[in-house]
């Protein structure tokens, strides 16, 4: 009795973490269904497990990271994860309750930054790019506080969990935030950030798969749906100046 269409049903598991990533996958879900692909969203709780799950073929793709993070994982674990498609830019910025510009920030002020390697480095790089500190030559995304070679105004960097940063606005003079964390506080990168990073496609949150399945029909189809007009519309309506589509 089964129709040929049902026979073609394919399951596709994608690991992800938080909105708007999960929202984007939710939008893609019904679209994939129409194509006979059953998209299952696996929500995990830290930023190592989605790559572990992908590498161990427990999921078929994941959607939570940018390219440098993936590359670092590949390098450390000897895996072959590949970027399928950049989806959106999450612009990193630093926010403050008390100060409007970096110049107002007093000597010795406390700056809260994420405590995981890649985001820690990313925020240090952001400050370095703006000339606020100087990092050792060529450390790039491996930077830690130990790599700060110049810190004229003697800022104190406090490392805090990504999840906790948004709650630290009262404790630190300046807090680095992802837009998705800043938004619920009513803070917008364009308007409220003391500084933001340069929009840089390397940091676009991307759909990632393995080398062996990246070219598969289902994954490609998913990439297509995630860069479709529905997602674009969603991002523009809900995350106008926090999460910019990384596709046209």
């Amino acid at each position, binding site marked *: 009795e089964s129709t040929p269409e049902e026979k073609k049903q394919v399951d596709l598991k994608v*690991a992800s973490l*938080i*909105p708007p990533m999960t929202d984007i996958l939710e939008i893609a879900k019904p679209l994939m269904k129409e194509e006979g692909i059953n998209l299952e969203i*696996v*929500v*995990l*709780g*830290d930023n*190592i*497990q989605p790559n*572990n*799950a992908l590498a*161990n073929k*427990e*999921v078929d793709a994941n959607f939570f990271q940018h390219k440098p993070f993936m590359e670092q994982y590949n390098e450390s674990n000897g895996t072959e994860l590949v970027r399928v498609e950049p989806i959106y830019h999450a612009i990193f910025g630093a926010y403050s309750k008390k100060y409007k510009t970096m110049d107002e920030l007093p000597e010795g002020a406390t700056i809260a930054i994420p405590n995981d390697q890649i985001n820690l480095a990313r925020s240090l790089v952001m400050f370095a790019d703006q000339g606020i500190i100087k990092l050792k030559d060529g450390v790039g995304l491996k930077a830690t506080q130990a790599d700060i070679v110049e810190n004229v105004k003697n800022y104190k960097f406090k490392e805090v969990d990504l*999840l906790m940063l*948004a709650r630290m606005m009262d404790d630190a003079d300046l807090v680095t935030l992802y837009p998705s964390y800043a938004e*619920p*506080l009513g803070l917008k990168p364009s308007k409220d950030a003391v500084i933001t990073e340069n929009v840089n496609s390397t940091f676009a949150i991307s759909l990632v798969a393995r080398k062996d399945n990246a070219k598969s029909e289902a994954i490609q189809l998913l990439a297509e749906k995630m860069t479709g007009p529905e997602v674009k519309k969603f991002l523009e309506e809900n995350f106008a100046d926090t999460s910019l589509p990384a596709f046209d």
Partner: protein
Amino acid sequence: MPDIILKYQAEIWQSIGETFVMVGLSIAFALLVGLPVGTLLYLCRKGQLLENRSIYSGLNIFVNIVRSFPFLLLVVFLIPFTRFIVGTAIGTMAATVPLSIVAIAYYSRLVEQALLEIPRGIIESAVSMGASVLEIIFKFLFVEARSSLVLGLTTSTISFISYSTVMGIVGGGGVGDFAIRYGYQRFETELMIYIIVMMIIFVQAIQFTGTTIAKKLDKK
């Protein structure tokens, strides 16, 4: 019923189900494995019935290792084992593996302590009747320590619930994780508070049930 709860009704029910699976299985393992392990810890101690240095040290070290691991890293370390047991390392069933191992280690320690409180005289009377070790365990030790054992299981269950809230990292789900993901990360503070109140009521009910049963069972 507040709107926000209605909106997430399905997810809330699911997460309650996940918590029940994780905590329920942990309790099952605490009883099926932790109780025997704790009893062995007690019996193999110096001066006790089955005094045996190597078994005691072995179990003692196992319990200490499990309890000294940062829970997050224990979960990570156990991933190969988890995959071997339940076929996958993500999802609710996978989360029960590290949880159950913690449950075993945790409860066995409380069992050991509960049994240590039994007066020597009771065990002597059992020995003098020619009871075998198994008979001593079931007809004397567990009878005399039963209210402590119930209180210990109550304490443990509450700890398991608390541990289960961390299982989001491997996709275990559960109400705690739900509160973190929906309530905290999405700043749905109202939702978070409802969930937490729900958890508090739940824990309070467990404690009340445990205390009441323990009191009923205690005839000292």
